[in-house]
């Protein structure tokens, strides 16, 4: 299979690296000849007491999560499951994390190593399976979220963690500003608050960890309604009603950023640091609002014309863009992999 991938790379045509295609919507529209990764599949190694799993790029996320669950472990960054066929290669390339990201860390924090085919079809192996490794540049974490523009990920090693023992989901009626304030205050205290969501005047929080800690925390945060933990799965997989929309903005901002006075509906996660926005405000207005508070706005879902117009991702300052181009050239000088998917410049 690797030989087949190499041959496809050596053909020298622009390639669209794709697993199940569940994230075709993300980033700028895919271009190039299809390189399907799904046939290169399977868990290569999983050692629960070493806290890592290694899998080939085409392995379905569902298969990995099932194997982990059988040992009481999980991918704590909770990548969204857009389809049952979503592959681990696509998960890592997209770099998206779910509700627990705010406490557990992002996908990139769990990447231990990657194997990669670069633009010259060379097999490169960065990082490994151990938790601590500072030999050489940390290329594996750069690959996470690079949307396949630096190379074809053939194998990944991820850190895994035990599932929390106890869980509680609590609900409070609260206006946005008050919810943001509460979330930031709670986050400054030693509480096992692992996820949060605010939408339409309702704040939902998830407490998880040791049983005693969850019970004690419930006392501290005050009386709220309880809700089904299944809510977090629907949030993680973005299947709640809120996500059923053609155009969706994702604003990554400091958690303390005040309520955005932008038209449209908002869903707030990550203790205030992630603001989903359904709005028909002009893209420049939305981008300006996010950068004014030191964050950025991604045009997450949108019709192709709009994405083509404003780009999926916020523009980079020139010195940073220059480094991006240099780095792209370091791995893929001919610009074969997923051209334009991240920025139209490369």
């Amino acid at each position, binding site marked *: 299979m690797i030989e087949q991938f190499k041959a496809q790379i050596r053909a020298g045509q622009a390639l669209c690296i794709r697993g199940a295609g569940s994230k075709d919507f993300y980033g700028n529209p895919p271009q190039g000849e299809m390189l399907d990764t799904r046939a290169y599949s399977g868990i290569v190694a999983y*050692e629960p*007491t*070493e806290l890592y799993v290694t899998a080939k790029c085409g392995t379905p996320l569902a298969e990995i999560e099932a194997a982990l669950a059988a040992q009481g472990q999980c991918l704590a960054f909770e990548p969204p499951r857009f389809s049952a066929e979503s592959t681990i290669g696509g998960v890592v390339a997209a*770099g998206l994390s779910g509700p627990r990201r705010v406490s557990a*860390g*992002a996908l*990139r924090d769990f990447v231990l190593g990657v194997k990669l085919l670069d633009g010259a079809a060379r097999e*490169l*192996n*960065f990082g*490994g399976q*151990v*938790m*601590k*490794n*500072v*030999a*050489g*540049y*940390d*290329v594996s*974490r*750069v690959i*996470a*979220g690079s949307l396949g523009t*630096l190379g074809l990920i053939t194998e990944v090693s991820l850190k895994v*963690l*035990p599932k929390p*023992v106890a869980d509680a989901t609590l609900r409070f009626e609260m206006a946005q500003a008050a919810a943001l304030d509460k979330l*930031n205050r709670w*986050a*400054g205290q*030693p*509480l*096992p608050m692992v996820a949060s969501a605010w939408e339409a005047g309702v704040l939902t929080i998830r407490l998880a*960890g*040791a049983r*005693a*800690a969850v019970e*004690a925390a419930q006392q501290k945060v005050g009386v709220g309604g309880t809700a089904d933990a299944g809510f977090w799965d629907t949030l993680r997989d973005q299947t709640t009603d809120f996500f059923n929309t053609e155009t969706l903005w994702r604003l*990554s901002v*400091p*958690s*303390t950023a005040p309520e955005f006075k932008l038209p449209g509906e908002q869903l707030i996660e*990550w203790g205030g*640091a992630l603001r989903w926005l359904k709005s028909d405000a002009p893209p420049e207005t939305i981008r300006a609002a996010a950068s004014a508070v*030191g*964050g*950025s706005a991604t045009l997450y879902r949108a019709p192709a014309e709009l994405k083509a117009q404003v780009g999926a*991702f*916020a523009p*980079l*300052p020139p010195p*940073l863009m220059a*480094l*991006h181009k*240099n780095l792209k050239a*370091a*791995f893929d000088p001919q610009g074969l992999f997923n051209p334009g998917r*991240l920025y139209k410049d490369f």
Partner: protein
Amino acid sequence: MTTRTHSHERDQDFSDVDRAALLEALAAVLPAASLLADHEDLKPYECDGLSAYRRVPLAVALPEDEAQVVDVLKACHRLGVPVVARGAGTGLSGGALPNEHGVVLSLAKMKRIVALDPYARTAVVQPGVRNLAISEAAAPHGLYYAPDPSSQIACTIGGNIAENSGGVHCLKYGLTVHNVLRVRAVTIAGEIVEFGNHALDAPGYDLLALMIGSEGLLAVVTEVTVKLVPKPEVARVIMASFDAVTKAGTAVADIIAAGIIPAGLEMMDKQATAAVEPFVKAGYDLNAAAILLAESDGTPEEVEEEIAAMRGVLERSGASEIRVSNDDAERLRFWAGRKAAFPAVGSISPDYYCMDGTIPRKRLAEMLTAINDMETKYGLRCVNVFHAGDGNLHPLILYDANVPGELERTETFGAEILELTVKLGGAITGEHGVGYEKINSMCVQFASDELAAFHRVKAAFDPQGLLNPDKAIPTLHRCAEFGRMHVHQGQLAHPELERF
């Protein structure tokens, strides 16, 4: 000197640097007190924490602010002068070892905490701020900066970024890379770049992750935003004795298998406890073949639950003695020996050489047995302290630099340990970096395609190779040279290269 594995041959030649022109250019952009050029002033900068390697630079620049950093870098860039950034100089891999034809750029004067926002739980600090100073400043707000290298009273956040430093609590709280939101840095061309921001992610490639652990080769860090986290209400530590190292190793795996991620999980072998006990009087069990320190932190309820669970696991894993700290004073005493292990060893041996490989935890016993054999082979003693939770070993090889041949034997001993870490599926460095010291061992860990890729990454930031040359990433020629002596997994490393 023929046994010396460490080739002192240079990859890049800067011998044509014009000292007078350099000093003139630096004097034009720095206040007089920020430029050192006299031999006796330069002497203190000749080495970092790895004092076996020393070189005196042409000059030391001590900029007071970012604008001066920019000017110094632009001057060096223009004149083709190599630059080695330096924090506190506590590094253990010769990362801050000067180039004798170059400038040491010390960030020591940039030590201001620019802003601390308890509500947002962030601190913005200059690169020369000491690791512990951040936690001290955050303490009144019930917050702290989680990564806690044992050198934290001295080492700087700039150095921590460069090395991706860890501490005894990084099993649960992560390394530097997991606790930094933003790095502002200056490239060798004098351009200011920001990686990351005050949000949880930033658009584009994760260059923040690339900067962290880049050993001063990509850019000079001038400002950092770190995450602060709430201080756990309580912490308690279990000290468990084992009559065999293998049992202690198994116990570590058993704790993880039980679904527990302790706040810290450290091991010391008998030689280590014997070395530190007279120094710190921690009350270590000197009869044990190994002791484990397992810490739990969180709410009082959580800690009680976790300590009970860990005690159960440790008993089942065959611990011969278990003690639990009853108060914070006792907890700190249990830790004191671990935290003071390096200085304690320094007091029992004229010199010591600290290694830093990582291995899969399950290979621990194998590794320690092999090290034991190497002690006989090289006629040198080795003391083992170990971040057991994440498989990071710190064998400390004891030697005396004044005995001819001992340093060379020590280096070969160290290189053999590193080679074994790679063979066991690990890495040659977990937190101290490659620096100058382990550059040859990189040839064992990586194939030439990866090394070439690293050089291209470097060139993306610093095409002339002026930032910290001859460090971290070996040239393919160096590896070919090194490969003559070392055969890796039955294969000749870098067979595609000509031998000379």
